[in-house]
């Protein structure tokens, strides 16, 4: 009996008004709701990728080229000729994304995209360190970590621009694809493009926050919660990349 009364009074105190049952501010709760809806969008895109990928037979075993080996001129045509890249087979990601800036003519599968992953993880760390510094009201530290986060975001965007340029130069388009099924290139552009646009928006938000930190807006306000809110968004972008990386490059 006493147990039930304790339970009802506790319930009342959570939903009884006067305080948020979620114990976060309005802005942070709204950011979480936005991220949930964004998670649904990205899930749909990745499930669409999984769907199309699953309707094609698995890629053929690669017995022609090993990592670090010399890449010949006309590699794509050669792969088409031996039947590795055909319209009815999903290509092996290893054979498609195998370039690295400034290193020509070498088969370097997955090296570049791994670098991009590490850049994004690192910028996530500097972001959360900025949030942590904000809790201590350390204005200078917040500014420093924000700069590193912005640089990480820009580096990632630069990498993606290079990746797209290489892919397009090799003949990939939204409606045609020398590596295999048309959907492979189309989904690649749509999903990484949508993610890249999120990174771009994140960088813009980070710059605004950085300028506000310098201006002392949050110092005056008495808290750095805005850094936390944008931080949530930035970590979400990193989170999505984990799955884009898994689906597009690993599976």
């Amino acid at each position: 009996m006493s147990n039930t009364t304790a339970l009802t009074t506790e319930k009342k105190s959570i939903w009884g008004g006067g305080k948020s049952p979620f114990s976060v501010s309005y802005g942070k709760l709204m950011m979480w709701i936005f991220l949930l809806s964004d998670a649904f969008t990205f899930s749909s895109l990745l499930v669409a990728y999984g769907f199309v990928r699953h309707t094609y037979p698995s890629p053929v075993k690669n017995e022609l080229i090993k990592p670090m080996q010399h890449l010949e001129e006309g590699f794509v045509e050669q792969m088409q000729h031996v039947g590795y890249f055909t319209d009815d087979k999903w290509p092996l990601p290893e054979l498609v994304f195998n370039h690295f800036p400034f290193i020509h003519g070498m088969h370097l599968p997955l090296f570049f995209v791994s670098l991009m992953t590490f850049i994004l993880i690192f910028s996530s760390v500097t972001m959360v360190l900025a949030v942590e510094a904000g809790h201590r009201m350390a204005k200078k530290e917040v500014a420093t970590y924000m700069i590193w986060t912005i640089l990480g975001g820009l580096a990632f965007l630069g990498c993606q621009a290079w990746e797209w340029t290489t892919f397009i130069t090799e003949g990939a388009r939204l409606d045609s694809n020398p590596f295999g099924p048309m959907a492979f290139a189309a989904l690649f552009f749509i999903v990484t493009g949508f993610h890249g646009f999120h990174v771009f928006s994140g960088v813009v938000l980070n710059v605004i926050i950085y300028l506000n930190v310098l201006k002392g807006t949050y110092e005056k306000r008495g808290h750095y919660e805005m850094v936390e809110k944008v931080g949530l968004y930035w970590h979400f972008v990193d989170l999505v990349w984990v799955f884009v990386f898994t689906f597009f490059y690993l599976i």
Partner: protein
Amino acid sequence: MENHEHLEHTETPKDMKSKIWKTFWILTALTIIDIGLYFVLLENHSLAKNALFILLGIVKAYYIVSIFMHMKFEAKWLVNFIIYPMLFVVFLIALMLIESTFTASIR
């Protein structure tokens, strides 16, 4: 005007900085394991391999959400409010797996 307004929030642990760096090393290690496994299992095209990579992705997601996004220290109601709707995605994946298996069989 907004001077020192009251903010509702849950406690952040005192050793947050070391937790952040620990998470960073875990994420880095998991990514390296991912890449290593990719080359070790290059000739394996089983569903189990895909499941393994997705599982590693989910582990990484757990660390990002719980530590970086601070969810481990949030109120229980907020956690449930965000996590349970993701079951819709699990449902979608299950449906689309069945559908795509059928589409593959008539292709």
